[in-house]
C-alpha cells in the first residue's frame, strides 16, 4: 500500500502546490481580517463565531506550510486539516444558531 504522503509535501518541484498554498493563506488572511472587522463593529456572538470559523479556514494553509517545511509530520497535517474542517462547520452552525438573537433584539427594540 502506498502511503498518502511522506515528509514534506512541498519538497523539490512542488512549486505549483506552494503557490496555491501561499495564495490561499493571503486570501484567507484578508477574509479573516474582514470578519474580525465585522465582529468589532457588531460585537455579537454570531459575528464572533464567523470570525473564528474563518480563522480556522485561514489556519489550514498555515499548517500546510508548516508541513511543507517538515515542522509538522504528514499524518499530523492530515489530522489537523480534518479537525479544522470540523471546527469550521461547527462554528458556522453556531453562528447560524445565534443569528436569531440578533433578530430578536431588533424585534424587542420595536424597529
Amino acid at each position, binding site marked *: 500500500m502506498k502511503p498518502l504522503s511522506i515528509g514534506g509535501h512541498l519538497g523539490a518541484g512542488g512549486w505549483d502546490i506552494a503557490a496555491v498554498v501561499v495564495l490561499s493563506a493571503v486570501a484567507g488572511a484578508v477574509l479573516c481580517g*474582514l*470578519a474580525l*472587522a*465585522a465582529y468589532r*463593529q*457588531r460585537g455579537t456572538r454570531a459575528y464572533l463565531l464567523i470570525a473564528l470559523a474563518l480563522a480556522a479556514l485561514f489556519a489550514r494553509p498555515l499548517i500546510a506550510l508548516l508541513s511543507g517545511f517538515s515542522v509538522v509530520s504528514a499524518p499530523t497535517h492530515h489530522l489537523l486539516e480534518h479537525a479544522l474542517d470540523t471546527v469550521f462547520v461547527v462554528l458556522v452552525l453556531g453562528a447560524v444558531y445565534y*443569528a436569531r438573537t440578533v*433578530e430578536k433584539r431588533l424585534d424587542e427594540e420595536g*424597529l
Partner: protein
Amino acid sequence: MSDTRSRIYRHIESHPGVHFRELTRALDLATGQVQYHLARLDRVHSESVNGRTHYYTSSFDPWERHAIAFLRRETARDALVMLIECEAARPSEVADHLDIARSTLEHHLSGLVEHDIVEKRRSEGRVTLALCRPDLTVELLAAVDPKAPDRLSDRFTRLLDRLFESG
C-alpha cells in the same frame, strides 16, 4: 518641525479623517514612527468611531470630525446621501432603497444619532429620519471619499448582516 512630521501633517490636512494604518501605508513609515510624531503634533485631533481612530487638523470642530468619520464608511455615506436627496425618510424606506438589512441600517443609525448627525423624529408612533445639519453635511460630503479597504470591510459586514437576518 522635522521633515517626517510635516509630511504626516500635510497628509492629514489633505485627507481629513485618515486612519492610523492608512497613514503608515501612504507615507511608508513604521508604526512607532507615526505614533511618535502624532503624539508631538498638537495641531492634530483624533476621534475614535466604532473602534477606529481617525485623524484631523484643528480646522474641524468635533461635530465635523464625527460626520467625516461616518462619510468615510460606504453604507453610512449612502444613507446620508439619501437623506440629503429626500430630506426626510422612514427607516424602512432607507433600508429598502439602499438594499441593506434593517440591522445594518440600525447599527449605522445608532452612531449617527448619538453624534447628532441624523435625528429620529417621532410623530404618531412613526419614526422619520432627517439630517440635523443638512448644509454642512453636503459640504463635508465633497471633502471625503471612502477608501477601497473601508468599502470592502463595509460590504462584508453588510453581507453577514443580511445572511443573519434573512429567513
